[in-house]
């Protein structure tokens, strides 16, 4: 599903964010990405979603090489990937419902079918009663769940989560991890970056540990 071969990422100015990265994530697998902040976790996730391109090496996502992907092919790639951001990236000019609706509008779904899907996604993350609320009125944990609802409404085959439990207390983190676990059970490929050791103990899975851009055994 996701395959890294000797991937380097160098930023202008010489900073090397990723060094000689090689690993594979199988279809339906759930994998943690651990390491201190600045270890290159976010950069790695950005490469998979073609937000950044590798300096050398190849990143294959569902058989497509991100290094040489055409600009016009990127939207289609991203529709297959659910992105969950640490800072949520919700839009405050519309309701929670409309935030989750956005990916379906982008894909050109039928309106009635979309509304059903949006409600199903909101129900999944426990926000169905808050569909009319503006995201700004939601708590941190609720915002994170809304971000998850937006990422899954499109039924992507890959979910990338960047520090999804980053600034939440353990009770909220547990709830969110349970949501992820249920996606894992229906065959979604999951890549979750975290520096929270307790989550790894509670929900064990394979972990890739990054240190200064390099993969640790």
């Amino acid at each position: 599903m996701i395959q890294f071969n000797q991937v380097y990422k160098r930023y202008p100015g010489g900073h090397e964010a990723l060094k000689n990265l090689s690993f594979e994530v199988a279809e339906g697998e759930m994998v943690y990405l651990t390491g201190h902040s600045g270890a290159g976790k976010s950069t790695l996730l950005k490469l998979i979603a073609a937000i950044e391109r590798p300096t050398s090496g190849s990143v294959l996502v569902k058989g497509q090489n991100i290094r040489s992907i055409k600009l016009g092919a990127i939207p289609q790639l991203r529709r297959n990937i659910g992105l969950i951001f640490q800072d949520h990236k919700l839009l405050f000019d519309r309701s929670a419902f409309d935030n989750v609706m956005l990916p379906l509008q982008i894909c050109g779904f039928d309106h009635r079918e979309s509304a059903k899907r949006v409600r199903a996604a909101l129900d999944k993350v426990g926000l169905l009663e808050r569909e009319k609320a503006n995201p700004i009125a939601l708590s941190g944990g609720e915002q994170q769940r809304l971000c998850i609802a937006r990422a899954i409404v499109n039924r992507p085959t890959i979910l990338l989560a960047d520090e999804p439990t980053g600034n939440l207390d353990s009770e909220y983190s547990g709830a969110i991890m349970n949501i992820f676990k249920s996606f894992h059970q229906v065959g979604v490929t999951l890549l979750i970056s975290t520096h929270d050791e307790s989550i790894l103990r509670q929900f064990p899975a394979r972990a890739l540990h990054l240190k200064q851009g390099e993969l640790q055994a």
Partner: protein
Amino acid sequence: MMNTLTEHLRVLRATLQRLLLTPNATLLNVAIIGIALSLPVGGYVLLKSVQSLAAQVTGTPQISVFLASGTSASEIERIGDKLKQHAAIERTEFISRDAALKKLQQSSGLSDVVGNLSQNPLPDAYIVHPRASDAAALEALRDELKTWQRFEHVQLDSAWIHKLEAVLDFGRLAVAILAALLSFALIAITFNTIRLQILTRREEIEVSKLIGATDAFIRRPFLYFGLTQGLLGGITAWLLVSGSLLLLNHNLAELTQLYASDFSLQHLSLADSFTLLGFSAYLGWLGAWYSVSQHLWQIEPR
């Protein structure tokens, strides 16, 4: 197909909502575009009215040929046949000196003066209606006729045509320059409006790109906005011109009555009206498109 249509309808509705969300800004923008467009459109309307007035007054151009006095009836007939056979002449009209005198008596209100004349001072004349109507061809024909025998005087009112055409050309050029400049202004206004919108909707654009929006999807609402704003500006211009014409014609009626003329300013034809609306919508779209292509690529998610 159905989905594409509903998507376009959704964007159109969102665009109208966006316009209504900031009514003052919308009103000002539309008014500026409307006023800018109404100036060349008004000029065009005036020009068209003057042109048709001129056509009414001058009719089709004609050449008057006055025969030398003492030309015999048989010679007059021979000349008439020769004129008829000329390739550049459509038809001729003979006005005998007696008929000319009668006409003068009737029309000019000089009947007393004319009645006191002891003899008819007018010559026999042919009115020549040429096929061509442009000044150069008319002058060539006049110069040719001048060389014919028994023609005392050949008169063509080309000076008047020249002057009128020069004035109309000047007017057309002025309107064209005005239209070009103000069209550019319209594009610039839209460009700037859309630029501000893109800046305020930066986050939305960024998020949309992250969840797989194509450039066309992101561009669409801005293009619709430019198009709609341009169209509303065009409608405003149309209303401004119509209102002004109504007002002017009302006043003009009193004026022309004094001159016993039925001259009035012509309104925009249906075709002209649609051209105006289409053009203003297109300019709005163009400004938006230009703005989007300038600014959108700068917003890439990081």
